[in-house]
Each structure stands twice: as C-alpha cells, then as structure tokens.
C-alpha cells in the first residue's frame, strides 16, 4: 500500500486542491517539491527569530495589543483636522457627516428612530475589511480590520491585523469595543459585504448577534446614483482618482491582498504586509474624503467652480439624488446648470431634467429644455420625436394653441418616420400611430376653430 499522499497524487489530486484559482506565486521555484519548499520556508522563519519580526512590525508602526480574548496586532495613526486627502480636509467630517442624515435614513428603513441620524461625526465608525476571498461564506476570513473615527476633531485610523486565525476573537472583541457608543458604520458596500461577513465571524466565534446591529452609512449606493452614468466604474479607486483628487502611488491592487497574506502565513515576514496595510489605510482615508464630498453635496455646498467641472450626466445624477433625499431646493441650481451644457448625449439629460420640472408643474423651466432638445433632434442622425411630442402636448393643453401644437406634432411625425427601422424597437409603430392621431385631432380642432 502506498502512502495517502502518493495515492492522492496518483489520482491527480495534487495541484487542483485550490480549485485552480490559487494565484501564481512569482518566486515559485521549479526544483524541489512543495513539501521541502514549505518546510524550508518555515525553518527560515523560525531561525529569523521573533526579534527580527518585532522590528519589522515596529517599522510598520504596529504593536501587539491584548485583551481578555488574546492578542492581535494593532497599528494606529492619527491625522490632524487640517490633513487633506485629495481635495477634502479630514476635519470637514465634523460638519459633513451630519449632513448625510438623509442618506442614512433612507438606508436604515426601520421604525422611525431619532438615532437613525448620526448625532455627530463621532458617532460614525469607518470600516474596511481585507479578506482572503470573495463572498460572505463561512470560509472567507477577514485578516485585516481597518477602522477609523473622529475624536476631538482628529481622524484616527486603527488597523487590527490578525497574524493567525487564533487571534480573530481578540480582534473582533476590539472591534465590538469600538462600536460601543457609536451608532453608524460608514463603509463602501458594507451593507452587503463587510457587515454580513463580520456577523458570520461573530457567530463562528460563538457570539450570537443580538438586536439589529449598527445603522449603515454605506457610501456605495450614493456613489452609484451620482456616477453610474458619468464614470466608467464606480469602484472606490476610480472615484478617488476622478472625483476626489486622490493620487495613489506604489499602491498594491486590492485583489492581491489575500496573496500577500498567504505568503505572510507561510514565513511570518512582516514585510509582506506593508503594501496591504498601506492600501487599507488609504481606503479608509478615501472613505472619509468621499463622506465629506457627499456631505457637501447633500448640504448644497458644492462650489459652483466645482460643479462646472462636472458632466451633464453627473449633474443630473447629483440633482436626482438630492431630489430623492428631499433636498429639491439644493437640486434646482444643478438642473438649471444642465440647460447650459452642450455635450454628446445631451438630448437624454435635457429630457430627464425637463421631466423633473414638468412633474413639479414648472413649465417655465421645462419648455426651454424641450426646445433645446427638439433642436438637437432636428440635427440628429437618429432623431427621437420625444421632445416634439412634449411640446405639442404643452401647446395643445397648456397654451391652448393648436396651431403651434400642430407644428410640433407634424415635425414629430416626420422625425418618427425618418427613424431607421432598427432603432425603432417594438414601441415605434404604436408611437407613430399615436402621433398620427394627434396630428389629425389637431387639424380637426384647427379646422373647427376656423369655421
């Protein structure tokens, strides 16, 4: 009989254990089997001695922390209020976070509860996890818990690094401690990922979730609302680069974080973690900067010089977002700004902005937008008749001016007929029929009024 390992290798089990998507290790050598390799590394690690490792951690600014659950590694950094991360000052969190109250109210649809508003910036805990995998399954392990909060105006970053799985309970206990007295969790996709994952970890470590858990201030949904049509991607890295003025240098891509951690687990060398710790810290700073950005916007404090840089799509995103959060008055100037823009794809943004004014009964604002959209359609290779139809309706029913209405309706019919068939979709024939009926009705009305 052969050994278990030999049998497994013969059956082809070796090398496929990770399901094939284990990332390749750049320094992997060809000679020697995996056993010798790993054993050699482990020996090298122990010979290095704990002293060397301690120095490594100290160089990173990390030190061992202890509580009744055990030990883990804690790295702290304090940023003064004046610190700028990109274009925003971290000190601005103090007034910007409370302005995000409408966002948290929308995200935490529980029974009306005054605590759904952060009472102040100090009630918010920023959180960003680095984990070994994707998804929120029980085997996805958070090896780095990044926290940040405002205290006495300063911005404090705390990174809880779990050197081996045995340290998880101590780190989780520390996290619970930091949650004490804070009501909101500020994250980027934390509602779907970071927090459910932590709940899983609590359960696995024998804690049972009690109560509803913290309230969320998840910055992903507002980011999507704002930039879905304006940026190629709504990932944090894209947002900070294009909108927050943050430039990262020497940053490791987030997806490589697990690989570095696996390497660290093998040889215990703190150097593997340098890039990951920095990356996570910058993510927390960006999260704060994004909160300031969104807070300013929610408060209607966006500088006109700033909005001048935005595309029409972004103006519309921001304006609609303000509307949805009951900040219509702050949205008005943004909608007006769209009218003055001239960019590719303007037809769609003009129509959307006009639609908003129409719903409010503000035809004085809507009509110029429709007129502008109509003139764009007249010049377009694929002319949509929508603006003309709106104007025809407006003139027929609001202005009681069938003659003006007929002009628009007839143009709408001509445009609709000129639409290439492929663009027409299934709705086109019915739409054309409706326009035709409108034209006929208007002609009848006109004829009747002439009689």
């Amino acid at each position, binding site marked *: *009989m*052969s050994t*278990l*390992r030999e*049998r*497994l290798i*013969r*059956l*082809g*089990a*070796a*090398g496929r*254990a*990770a*399901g*094939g*998507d*284990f*990332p390749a290790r750049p320094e992997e050598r060809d000679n020697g089997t*995996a*056993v010798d390799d*790993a054993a050699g590394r482990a020996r090298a690690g122990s010979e290095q001695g704990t002293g060397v490792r301690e120095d490594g951690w100290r160089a990173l600014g990390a030190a061992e922390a202890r509580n009744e659950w055990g030990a883990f590694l804690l790295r702290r950094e304090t940023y003064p209020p004046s610190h700028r991360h990109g274009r925003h000052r971290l000190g601005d969190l103090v007034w910007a976070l409370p302005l995000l109250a409408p966002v948290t109210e929308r995200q935490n649809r529980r029974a009306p509860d005054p605590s759904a508003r952060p009472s102040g910036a100090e009630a918010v805990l920023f959180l960003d996890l680095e984990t*070994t*995998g*994707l*998804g*929120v*399954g*029980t*085997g996805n*392990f958070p090896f780095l818990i990044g926290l940040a909060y405002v205290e006495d105006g300063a911005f404090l970053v705390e990174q809880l690094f779990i050197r*081996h*799985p*045995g340290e998880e309970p101590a780190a989780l206990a520390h996290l619970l401690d930091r949650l004490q007295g804070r009501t909101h969790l500020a994250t980027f996709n934390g509602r779907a990922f970071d927090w459910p994952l932590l*709940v*899983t970890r609590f*359960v*696995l470590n024998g804690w*049972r979730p009690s109560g509803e858990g913290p309230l969320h201030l998840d910055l992903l949904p507002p980011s999507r609302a704002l930039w879905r049509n304006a940026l190629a991607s709504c990932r944090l890295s894209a947002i900070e680069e294009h909108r927050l003025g943050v430039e990262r240098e020497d940053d490791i891509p987030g997806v490589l974080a*697990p690989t570095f951690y*696996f390497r660290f*687990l*093998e040889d215990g060398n703190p150097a593997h973690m340098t890039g990951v710790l920095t990356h996570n810290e910058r993510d927390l700073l960006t999260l704060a900067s994004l909160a300031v950005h969104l807070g300013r916007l929610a408060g209607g404090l966006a500088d006109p010089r700033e909005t001048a840089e935005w595309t029409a799509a972004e103006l519309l995103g921001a304006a609609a977002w303000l509307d949805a959060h009951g900040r219509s008055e702050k949205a008005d100037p943004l909608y007006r700004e769209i009218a003055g823009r001239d960019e590719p794809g303007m037809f769609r943004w003009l129509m959307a902005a006009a639609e908003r004014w129409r719903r409010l009964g503000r035809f004085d604002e809507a009509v110029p937008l429709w007129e502008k959209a109509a003139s764009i359609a007249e010049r377009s290779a694929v002319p949509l008749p929508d603006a003309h139809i709106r104007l025809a309706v407006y003139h027929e029913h609001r202005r009681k001016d069938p003659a003006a209405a007929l002009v628009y309706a007839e143009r709408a019919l001509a445009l609709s007929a000129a639409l290439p068939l492929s663009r027409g979709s299934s709705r086109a024939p019915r739409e054309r029929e409706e326009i035709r009926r409108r034209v006929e009705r208007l002609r009848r009305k006109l004829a009747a009024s002439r009689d």
Partner: protein
Amino acid sequence: MNRWTGRAASVEEWIADFRSRPEFMANVTHWHTTPARPARTVPFPETLHPKLAEGLGSKGIASLYTHQAEAFAAARAGEHFVVVTPTASGKTLCYNLPVLQRILEDDSARALYLFPTKALAQDQVAELQELANLMDVDIKTHTYDGDTPPEVRRVVRLAGHIVVTNPDMLHSAILPHHTKWVKLFENLKYVVIDELHAYRGVFGSHVANVIRRLKRICRFYGSRPQFLCASATIRNPKEHAQRLLEEPVRLIDDNGAPSGERHFVFYNPPLVNRQLGIRASSVLETQKIAADLLKSGIQTIVFARSRVRMEILLTYLQELVQKDLGPKTIRGYRGGYLPRQRREIERGLRTGEIRGVVSTNALELGIDIGELQACVINGYPGSVASTLQQSGRAGRRRGSSITILVAGSNPLDQFLVRNPEFFFGLTPEEARIDPDNLLILLDQLKCAAYELPFEAGETFGAESLEDMLEFLAQERVVHRAGNRWHWMAQAFPANNVSLRTASPENFVIIDVTEGHRVIGEVDRFSAPTLIHEEAIYIHEGVQYQVEKLDYPEKKAYVRQVNVDYFTDANVAVDLKVLHADLEEADGLLTRQYGEIAVTARTTIFKKIRLRTHENIGSGPIHLPEEELHTSGCWFAFADEVFEGRSESERQTALLGVSSVLGRLAPLHLMCDPFDIRVVPQVKAVHTKRPTIFFYDRYPGGIGLSRKLFDLHAELLREGERLIAGCGCENGCPSCVGPADETGERGKELALELIRRTLAGVPA
C-alpha cells in the same frame, strides 16, 4: 370486453382477455400473481396531538397503518429510522407525523427535508401545506432551491419550520453559509431523507459526506437531529442508512397498507431465426402490448432503458393510437425535458387526461403521478430494485394491476426471462456507497474545512484526518494554527464539487428550425454519444438532426427532420494499469485489483433504420477524448486454459466470456449497469496474458471493481450457467454474442474457457 369499441371494462377483463390469446401467451415464460392484501391498521396513538388527529380526520384518515404507527413510536423514542414499504403505502406520513407533532408541541422546533430532486420537494411542500391548513395551524413549509427568489430566501432562513431542499443545495448554498441559518441549526430536531435508495454510487458517496458536514455543523450549534428516512426496496436498507448516516438506524418494513392483486408477467419475444438465435425486436413487442392496453382504455406506463429507446417507442405508440385516443394523450418523460413540461405531464397523469406515458427510469422516483393500472417494461432495467420500482408504478390499493417485462436479446435479459425463479428468488440489489473514496473525501473535506476549522482529535471519514489536512496544507488551502486547521484560500470549494456524476455542466439543445428555442438538456457524459454532429436526437417523439455541436460552449444546435432512421455511437476505449494493489491466484486464474487509466473516444456512429433496425450507414465523430483515472480489477487467464487453441480461437473465447461477465456483473453490484465497464484484451500489456478488465466509471472508483475482485467465482459460475442454458447453436445476442461478431464457435470456446478456469477455482 365491449365488442364494438374494443375497450375493456376493467384491467381485470383485459388480463383475462390477454390470457386467452395464444399469440401472446406463447411468449409468456412466467406469470406471477401476488394476491390482494388487506390493510392492517391501529387506532391513532394516544400521544397524537389532537390537532393532527383532527387534520387527518378531515382527510378521511381515522387510523394508522401498522408501519406508520411504528414509525411514530420510534421517532418519539428518539430513534433514527428508515421505512421501507412499497409505492402508495402512505410512506410520507411516517415522517410527517412525528415532525408535525413536534412542531405543534414546540413552535421553535425545525426540520430539514431532503429529496433528490426539486420536483419531489415541491410535491412534498404541497402535501405538508395541505395538512397544516386542515389543522388550521401556522406551520411554515418552504422549498429552498435554485428557483427560490432572493427576497424569499431571507424569510425561509429565519422563519421556516420545515425547509425542503435537495442535497446539492445543502452542499453548495446552506452549509457554506450556515451562519445565516442559526435559527435552523440551533433548533434542528429532525432531518428527513426520502428516496434513500437514490443516494448510492458516486452521488450517495458524496451525500454521505454532506451528511457528515451537516452533523458537524449541528454539533457546532449544539443540536443533534434525528434522521427519519424512507427508501424503496433494496437488499440492505438498514446497512445503507447506517453507512450514509453513520448512526444506528431502526428498520421499519412491516407494511400495513393494503394492496390489490398484482400480476407480473415475463415475456420473451419469439425467435425469428432459431439457428442464429435472433428474436423479434423487444421494442416492437413492447409497442404491440402497450398499444393493446392503451386502445383498451387502460392507463399505462412504459419504461425503456435508454433515452433513444424511449423516444422511439413514443413515436411508434403515438402513431398507433393517435386515432383512438388523440395526440396529446400519450406523452414521453425523461430527464432533459424542461421542468415545466414535466410538471404538466405529471399533472395530466394524475387527472387521467394523459392515458399513457413512455419514460426512462426518471419516473422511478416517488414523483406523484397517481396510481396507474398497467406497466410495460422494455428490457430488464438492470436491477431487481429498479424493476420493483418501475412495476410499483402500476399498483393500486384496490383493484388489480399488471406489469409485463419484455425481455431484450442481451444475455442478462435472456438469463432472467428463462430463469424466472432466479429473479423472484433474488433479493434486490444492495445500495453501495464509498464515502471514503479518496477524491470524494478530499473534495468534501475542503468544503468542510471552509465551513468550520478542523480541530485536532476530530474525525472525518476513514482516512487519517490529520494526514489529509497536512496534504491540504501543503496544497496551500488550509493553514494550521496551533491545534486547528483553517480554510485559507480564495476559492469557494463547494462550487468546484458536484455531487452527481452528471455534472451540472449540461449541454443545452437548441432547436433552430424556427428562431432559437431551447428544447432540452443532455449531461456532459452522454453528449458525445447522443448529440454528436449528424446525430438524430429525438425529443417528445420529434426527430431533430444535430447540425452543430459547440463543445466548449456546451450547446448543440438541432433542426427538425423527418428521416426513417436513428443513430447509435461507438465508443473506443484504451486502458492502462497504473498500479496493482491486490493480487490473488486460484489455479489458472490470476486476479488483480488496482488503479487504471482509461481513455474513451467516440469514433463513429451508425444509422439504424426505424422498425427493421438494420444498419444503413455510418459516419465519423470528431470529439476530444475523455481520460478517467479509476479503480479496476482484472482477470488474467493462464496459457494452459487455452491449450490447443489458436490465436483467433483465444480471441473468440475471451470476447464471448467478457461479454457475458460484463452483462452479469451489474446484477451482483450496484444498480446501474453504466457504472461498471468491461474491456477484454487478448494480450494485455500489464499481465502479458489474455485478460478481462472491469473498471468503475467514476474518477477514483466507487468500490464496484473491488467487490468484483471477491465475487469472481460466483460470476464465472453464473456465466457458465447462462451460456450452457442458452438454446442457440453457435452463440447469439442472448449469450456470448452473435456468431458473426464473436466467431463461428464462440459459444463452445467461451464455455470451454470458463469451465477450464473454474476447474481451478475452489468451490
């Protein structure tokens, strides 16, 4: 019999008529009648919750069958049990009663139901909900499967009393996310596993490990559920349940349900050429009998061994009875039909609108299609258990039913039809699993490690857990920290582990006759033989030709055609011994068991004319070959047994014996003949002698060839009996194969080989 319509007033009348017709009775080799049996009932147990008694009462149930009462008592006493009683014996109540009772007593109690398929799960929920409504209590039963919408999933996780799912879902969606199911796992009192016999072979070996994982997670949450199981008839229900659950299990098989009179008829198609041993086609005979039943107005189910056969039979029958019954009254049923279509057919059978159904073994399982009156089985289904299951589809609590087994021309069918006492003397097959198959165990161990870290001192399967974990640590998927091993990889292992041989990577079949329409699916292993380019694919009796097989994308594009042939593909197998673990010799026979590598490639296909079944052409198939590492056993014959025989005579003898042994082997092993393969080699590289190889058709093997290694003497003796007992002259499809394939003196030479070999084997 109504002389004007030709319809029988009852199945009893049809049976009497059949018995009076010589053209049928001449081919009946055996007629077995099981008399009607009255019900044995007992009053409701005193402990039965009044609400339950009330609910059953309003369904017209006033007492329990003895086996139901026994199950209720066993569950109350804290025992794990397995109920083995026939179809339509009130099996589901055996587990529903204790579960509902417990929930009525304690609203926080939870139960998990496992069914092998989604369809069975949905039937079950309907039944439980009906009972809960009758009792006027709020017991929430939910299915949790791939079709459950995300917003409903949350509700099920938190508030479902009874969660009904399948092992695949438990494996890939529930266990890896157990922390979302805290309420279920903390309060799990009962795990119900129905159709226990379906969990055999590879699938069963995986499911046994999924149960290990389930129990591990229950331990973590401090619960220790009882397992309440039900199974169709197999030889070893208790042992199988204990192997699957790794717990002591009580067997409940004292059936108290009534049944009507049942007839079981063996029917051998007549010889059309005695010398060559050629019989009339079993398909045509099956069609004749089934058409007679259907035209007489008797609701009938017809079973066929393969999908192609099933579709051919359906085509024939639809043509034959269309004018009597109308086109939509005869339907086909098999895996690969879309679920909506299958539900519609099941419903039609229950209401009686559908008068006949032609099915593969897909309808063997307990899908609710009501009680049919007659069953015609085309070809021995390969196992006693399957035969009983299929026959059980025609069987009623009151009134007679009949099953007619039409034998095929292969050796196994012929052996049985000519030795009916052998069939009735046979105990049904064992369900066999090998949960410790190394590859299965390793895959499952990864899933388990993902779910919870392993601690020193734990066990998981028969192999040394620590050695396996060390292996996984070297593979860099688990990490040891002190006395614990933690999953430490980016992968989600359950996604890469499929519980079934038929992997989820199905090929979809797209009809391009008019636009693009998905009409069905075929599993990966069957794709090369069923949907290669130019193949005729039959779906619900309609012929399609495969125009293009997109192998990497797993799509077959087919177009409707109307041709008078079907296709059949040949598979070329190459086999290499990697390592021999066991060796034994008895006289002139040397047996070995070990690991082998098999490569299989589909090479050509034949076109076979409908009805006459003559070969009318062929064509090549160009598809990648599949490699399989598995376990096998092989019989090598010493030169002495071939003394005085030429090279070609040796070949003839070996071919004949291997064909007989290959057909008989499944009889002694697990249920599906496709799970074990046989390959003869006149001069095997490994043994340098004439050798017959058997191998398990699953990576790593599932213990079949290991069993054959020990069963050799029995197998050879039965082979001898079959060949010697066959009435043909020089070999026929019913024994060693037709003379034009195996050679002129195939029968004599094969018999000589077996007899000379057996001379050295101790009795």
